[in-house]
């Protein structure tokens, strides 16, 4: 009889010992923060200004795209963070002066970890920010500022420090030239991501 009692105690103890680390592992695997650096291909959003530029002969919509963002997760799956983007495009022909567009954006974001797994994470970020940018034909364009709103979707593989992303932001701006039309410094983009988290 004493043997039975001993066996019962041992079984209960193992259950306690096993469950505590599992909870700890789950808790530690939950996303607490992340940082990303993105590089990829962007393209401009259509606008009256863009249409006029295309009529002039500047018909390439593609831009470079570099992004940095990060966030802290005070709540499970829901975070707060910051984001920034630098994007640039050049377009020229033999007969036209070179067109240059430079766009800088910075702001805050609210990321949601749709899938929060240590091996793969899917993040959806709602973004607000401020854009400053300029378009120029002779190297003397004027910067103009405007609010920006966007959405970013990313799939990241934390163990590989790698991911993919896509998204867009919109930033309607007023023209700087008197004959210009309403423009948009927003971008759509596909990016490759270098990723770390904790």
């Amino acid at each position, binding site marked *: 009889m004493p043997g039975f009692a001993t066996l019962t105690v041992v079984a209960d103890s193992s259950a306690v010992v096993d469950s505590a680390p599992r909870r700890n592992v789950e808790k530690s695997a939950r996303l607490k923060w992340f940082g990303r650096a993105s590089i990829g291909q962007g393209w401009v959003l259509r606008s009256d200004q863009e249409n006029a530029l295309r*009529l002039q*002969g500047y*018909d390439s919509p593609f831009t470079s795209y570099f992004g940095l963002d990060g966030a802290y997760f005070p709540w499970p799956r829901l975070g707060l963070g910051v984001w920034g983007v630098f994007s640039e495009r050049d377009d020229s022909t033999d007969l036209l002066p070179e067109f240059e567009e430079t766009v800088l954006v910075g702001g805050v974001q609210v990321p949601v970890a749709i899938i929060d797994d240590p091996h793969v994470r899917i993040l959806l970020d709602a973004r607000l920010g401020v854009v400053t940018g300029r378009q120029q034909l002779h190297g003397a364009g004027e910067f103009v500022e405007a609010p920006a709103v966007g959405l970013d979707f990313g799939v990241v593989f934390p163990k590989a420090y790698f991911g993919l992303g896509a998204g867009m932001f919109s930033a309607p701006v007023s023209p700087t030239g*008197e004959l210009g039309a309403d423009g948009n410094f927003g971008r759509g983009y596909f990016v490759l991501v270098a990723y770390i988290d904790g």
Partner: protein
Amino acid sequence: MVISAEVTLCSWRTSMADRPRRVHGSGVLVVLAALLACGTSPERGPLVETSCSNDNCQTTGSARRTTGLTADSVGFTIGPGLGTLTLSNVEVRERGEYDVFALIRGSGFVRVSVDAQSCAPLPVLPGWPEPPAPSCSTVDVGVSEKYRWVPVAARLRGPESIDVSIQTVDETSEVQVLNVGFQPSPVDDSGAGCSSDSSGPSD
């Protein structure tokens, strides 16, 4: 005479659709020639940007020089009220026949005159077909709210220098001139694949 902004211009899509099964041997050359003549990036002269940055453009009346699409580019406004913009001795490097267009928006009508050496009709040579007559007459053009390339002269022959004059025809018309350009004249519809659905040198 009032002309519409709709004009017979080349469309590479049409030319490709017209010739899907004959791309062999000389057919390739025909398609390439059609693409060159009707390409998506036709030769255009940034005449306002190049001519007017050197003060070769004169304004009178309500016409005035201003900034274009960007703060560092050139554009012109004419009206409300009578006014004239003149681009003088503009060099067209295009070899062969070319058409002249103006990239404008606004309201009302403008009168556009193009003066070029090739406006004089060519002599008809014995045994040769009569060459198409160039269109150098002054035209009144309806202006739309959005920018459009509007044809103002056709079948001139370059290279040469031309004068282009744009003026409002009444007190209420108002026009913004973003550019004046040119491109090769479309090849005859005998197989070059030109269509009538384009609205300018390039959309």
